[in-house]
């Protein structure tokens, strides 16, 4: 399957012309500082610990409209070992908050997943709050591919 130089140039020129503007370009965006601020409201100013919380996000999202995302904390969900909530934030979206999952002992496990929108390549941050007040965070960068063929 060979491609000659002329075809290659035609295709690359075509590719360059497939310019796609970002979702609501120019509007205000959340950033890492806004996410930190939102997190501090949950932690009461304490710095969350690393670990314990798992954030499952794709390394590359084929389309920022529908990005599968999952969170879980290894917890017995009884006694004092209860996860109250896990919140997901996005640093590069117009608003930092994405979703908060609220658990109860009847949840059985502290695990949940959903599908989210990402305006561009950015960090996704999850914050878990335990019944005893401890908080844990996890962060993952998701690369969002744009500029494919519309239609």
């Amino acid at each position: 399957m060979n491609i000659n130089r002329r075809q290659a140039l035609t295709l690359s020129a075509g590719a360059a012309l497939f310019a796609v503007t970002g979702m609501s370009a120019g509007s205000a965006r959340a950033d890492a500082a806004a996410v930190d601020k939102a997190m501090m409201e949950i932690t009461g100013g304490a710095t969350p610990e690393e670990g314990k919380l798992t954030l499952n996000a794709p390394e590359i999202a084929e389309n920022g409209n529908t990005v599968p995302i999952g969170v879980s904390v290894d917890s017995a969900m009884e006694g004092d070992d209860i996860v109250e909530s896990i919140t997901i934030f996005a640093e590069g979206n117009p608003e930092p908050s994405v979703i908060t999952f609220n658990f109860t002992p009847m949840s059985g496990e502290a695990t949940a997943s959903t599908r989210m929108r990402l305006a561009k390549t950015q960090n996704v941050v999850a914050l878990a709050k335990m019944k005893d007040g401890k908080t844990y965070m996890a962060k993952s960068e998701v690369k969002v591919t744009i500029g494919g063929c519309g239609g």
Partner: protein
Amino acid sequence: MAKVKPRVKVPKTASAGEVITIKTLISHKMESGQRKDSDGKAIPRQIINKFTAEFNGQPVFSADIHPAVSANPYLEFTAKVSESGKFTFTWVDDDGSVYTDEQEIAVS
């Protein structure tokens, strides 16, 4: 837009104390409030902002939802069941509409 309709997947049976996986999906455009129409006017936000799951009247799981959740919002979570009963699922729309679905489970 298509009529708002929930879909829920709950196992029909479980053993006592088992942790089951529940999946829910509801048809909804989740208009973010960030988009503009062809005249350049902002399209007002209209999303599902809250989801709750109860079992025999007891809270199991809930979610506070923001515009960054995708259209046709999908939620997957777990529940620990100790007796037979009924799950009630509720979605709350920005416009005040409430959509519900119920599913029974037999626990042995």
